[in-house]
């Protein structure tokens, strides 16, 4: 694959346009196998206190060595909390990349745009590669780009709902004006949703629940991988224009 075909975020090239999350799997073994089947090269993790009485298994033992671990700031409700979490992750040896989530709303898990922008500016200033998770909002997109975010990541539908591209029209506007890679993140429940996002021109998608909560996560991971490749190939191939009227595919006249 040439560099032009690759996903480039903050100067780093990736062959896969499918980012994945590690949450909601029944077992770490299934997670490991699904991530392998997905071909994903960027994998999110959350950051939480260790329960000193029952530390349990270390997830990183089940993650491939050659993927980029992307710490998220899930659980943070303010810019200060998100910045603190990102700094802790970086100091402890995780990459200086962050999936910035600032979410005060427990019902729909919608991100706070004001706190997200504040945190993004501070984190970029502090040297982080920032991937902010937002509601589709073209005006916010421009502000996040201006403060130096490496991507903008609009949700298709609320986290974990699997409802697909409910917010496609606004995402389309964002794709049209994007100056940094646009990653559709959250709400993609089936591979066809991911393919649709890629056909629209998204640079990548991030999928967690759609794979982890499938009947067979390993098979579904492969299906998403194929869908992302199909959607991207279709986008680059130039999808035919819709027509209002039927156009015959076989010759008119000369019938027997």
């Amino acid at each position, binding site marked *: 694959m040439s560099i032009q075909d690759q996903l480039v975020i903050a100067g780093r090239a990736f062959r896969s346009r499918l980012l994945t*999350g590690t949450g909601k799997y029944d077992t770490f073994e299934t997670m490991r196998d699904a991530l392998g089947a997905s071909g994903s090269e960027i994998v999110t993790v959350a950051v939480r206190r260790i329960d000193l009485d029952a530390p349990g298994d270390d997830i990183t033992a089940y993650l491939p060595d050659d993927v980029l671990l992307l710490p998220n700031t899930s659980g943070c409700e303010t810019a200060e909390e998100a910045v603190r979490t990102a700094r802790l992750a970086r100091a402890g040896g995780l990459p200086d990349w962050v999936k910035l989530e600032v979410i005060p709303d427990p019902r729909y898990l919608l991100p706070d745009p004001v706190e997200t922008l504040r945190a993004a500016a501070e984190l970029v200033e502090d040297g982080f590669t920032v991937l902010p998770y937002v509601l589709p909002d073209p005006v916010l997109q421009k502000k996040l780009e201006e403060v130096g975010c490496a991507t903008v990541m609009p949700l298709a539908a609320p986290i974990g709902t699997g409802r697909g591209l409910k917010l496609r029209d606004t995402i389309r506007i964002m794709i049209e004006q994007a100056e940094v890679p646009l990653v559709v993140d959250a709400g993609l429940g089936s591979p066809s949703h991911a393919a649709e996002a890629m056909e629209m021109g998204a640079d990548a998608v991030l999928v967690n629940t759609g794979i982890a909560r499938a009947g067979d996560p390993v098979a579904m991971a492969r299906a998403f991988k194929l869908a992302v490749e199909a959607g991207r190939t279709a986008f680059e191939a130039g999808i035919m224009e819709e027509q209002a009227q039927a156009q015959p595919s076989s010759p008119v006249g000369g019938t027997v």
Partner: protein
Amino acid sequence: MSSIVVNGKDESLQDGDTVSALLERLGLGARYALVERNGEPVERSRYAEVRLEDGDRLVVARPVAGG
């Protein structure tokens, strides 16, 4: 006796305890243990150098499953 607080729990502090020594004693040999001391993150490269003091408040975290 000296003590510190780790993730909200009291832990005894032994003379000369470094962050590394504490993590060992807590059985945390994880690939990643993320440490914050008195509100400031501690660089992993300094775990063996940073000496803990009586009354220190530590948060020890790590990467876990998440989307």
